[in-house]
């Protein structure tokens, strides 16, 4: 019997990486997928990776998706790890979603409103029937004739409510420097700025499930979609040498403002309250989930009974980041020989004690 301590970790890793590369390439008789194709044709996947990777760059997100074989959490991780090495040159000015070039804008609380309902590119009213025509390659789509952009103003729905004093003020101070989750450790109690930052990059499935749970009674806050808007906004920054803002580019954003019931408290009369969601790219599911959870986490602030998971700020923020979550869950694959060995010794000792005690009892009973 010969035992050789397991060696060869180095070779094993190299071989594994090699295998992975082959698996990624897939059937070589098929053309290799290009990152430009991913960026242009898998836009929703790219949007999710940018949001969770917390970095707006469709080309890099497309590369990450290709490298991760379409595993979007792995792709977000690649993007996040790349982002962390980038120097930070400057802060942008707050983006003005009021001035968004709208692709889509809907409200569920007013049938019609200034600026109108703009349906835009949505899956909402498609029939979920597999379209086998898509399976055929080189399917041509005739381009839509372009409509002239509407010049009508599209005021926020919450602003309409605010005119009547029916909704709480947005409560966002533009003076205070917001927290910075990228640079500073999350600390509790966490204020709303940091909470929203955390949710904006949180796992879509987690936000969806938590938002859903509030609808099912775990922290219900009676939400209405005040407004969802999707479109392009300009990103501006003020170079110190110029002293005035210049536009450095545009990004696609999805914004959701929930309007929630509120019965009033000792200090506040009854009025509607707000839940807010904002994310990179086009993802209404993410923005809505975020808005529901944002409102749920305000329970304590609004004097509500905070008992549900979605209302527990520490619980939500500590678990919404899927890069952290996937790392820690998957680290269970790492060796734990040493800890397990300690547990083996402990359980053997405890079993020996227990067996001895039983034997002693049996012996006593036999004597008796």
């Amino acid at each position, binding site marked *: *019997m010969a*035992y050789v*301590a*397991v*060696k*060869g*970790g*180095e070779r*094993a*890793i190299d071989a594994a990486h090699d295998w992975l590369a082959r698996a990624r390439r897939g059937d070589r008789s098929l053309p290799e997928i290009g990152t430009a194709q991913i960026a242009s044709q898998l836009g929703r996947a790219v949007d999710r990776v940018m949001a969770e990777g917390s970095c707006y760059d469709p080309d890099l997100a497309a590369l990450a998706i290709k490298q991760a074989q379409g595993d979007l959490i792995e792709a977000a*991780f690649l993007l*996040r*790890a790349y*982002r*962390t*090495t980038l*120097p930070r040159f400057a802060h942008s000015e707050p983006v003005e979603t009021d001035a968004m070039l709208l692709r889509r804008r809907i409200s569920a609380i007013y049938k019609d409103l200034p600026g109108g309902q703009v349906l835009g590119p949505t899956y909402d009213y498609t029939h979920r029937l597999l379209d086998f025509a898509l399976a055929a390659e080189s399917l041509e789509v005739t381009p839509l004739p372009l409509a002239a952009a509407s010049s009508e103003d599209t005021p926020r729905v919450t602003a309409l409510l605010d005119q009547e004093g029916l909704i709480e003020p947005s409560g966002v101070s533009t003076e205070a420097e917001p927290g910075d989750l*990228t*640079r*500073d*450790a*999350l*600390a*509790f*109690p966490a204020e709303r700025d940091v909470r929203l930052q955390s949710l904006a990059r949180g796992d879509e499935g987690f936000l969806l499930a938590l938002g859903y749970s509030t609808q099912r009674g775990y922290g219900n806050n009676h939400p209405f979609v005040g407004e969802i808007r999707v479109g392009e906004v300009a990103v501006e920054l003020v170079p110190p040498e110029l002293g005035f803002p210049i536009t450095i580019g545009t990004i696609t954003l999805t914004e959701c403002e929930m309007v929630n019931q509120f019965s009033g408290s000792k200090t506040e009369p009854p009025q509607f309250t707000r839940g807010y969601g904002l994310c990179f790219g086009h993802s209404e599911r993410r923005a809505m989930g975020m808005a529901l959870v944002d409102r749920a986490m305000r329970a304590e602030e609004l004097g509500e009974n905070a008992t549900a998971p979605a209302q527990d700020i*520490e*619980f939500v923020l*500590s678990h919404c980041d899927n*890069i*952290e979550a*996937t*790392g*820690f*869950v*998957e*680290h269970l694959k*790492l*060796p*734990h*020989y*040493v*800890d397990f*060995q*300690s*547990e*083996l*010794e*402990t359980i053997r*000792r*405890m079993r020996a*004690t227990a067996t001895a005690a039983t034997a002693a009892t049996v012996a006593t009973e036999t004597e008796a």
Partner: protein
Amino acid sequence: MSGYNFAYLDEQTKRMIRRAILKAVAIPGHQVPFGGREMPLPYGWGTGGIQVTAAILGPSDVLKVIDQGADDTTNAVSIRRFFARTAGIETTTHTADASVIQTRHRIPETPLRADQIIVYQVPLPEPLAKLEQSRAETRQMHALAEYGLMHVKLYEDIARYGHISISYDYPVMVNGRYLMSPSPIPAFDTPKMHRMAALQLFGAGREKRIYAIPPHTDVKPLDFDDHPFRLTRAPQACGLCGARDSYLDEVVMDDRGGRLFVCSDTDYCAGRQSMRQDEDAAA
């Protein structure tokens, strides 16, 4: 490696981490929050330790990385390679030759010296987490040194099992002030922390905390006067080098209950084996 700074992290980030380390050294056992970065390795796989190591490495350092005591486990290989690649520094598997040792779950058997630094990878830095979920509350408990709850847990263990059943990640008091998680090292290793000559640094990446034990600091496992701390080790001798003083891994040899016990510290074991061979050759 082109395109990246020495040891991966940019210098600003390293300075931020070093400030956290300095604060941690100044307040032994206290968890210092830091702006932890995403690393190219997953959370839970040593990102905290890697950030600490990256922040303290210099070009002349010699790095050793172990996981479960071994230099050749895949994760140890992966991290060692990461620094060989991004910092171009020398690496070693010999404890005595290393200036920085990054570890997961073990402390080397060979005593560490004053000119060495050991960096622990920490999954859950909060020793009270299992008893109190809220970090806002545990922070207050640390601030006020209210650790009675931890003793309640030990009391419950003795009441139920007749002894304290914690076999790894055994809670310790550092410098008589802060309750600290030693990371999931076996209780066998805990006494090595007490008044260690080397600086001990702890990095928790996911939880974004750094803490430290300066050289020659008191580290006492929590216990009762009449149920003192005791360590657990398989009673066997190492099947390869015959050591009776080292922590052992249990290796399953067959499906009929065959077991072999070998040193978990591969460097220690190899050193003893070669010494034996030399003696045999001499004899």
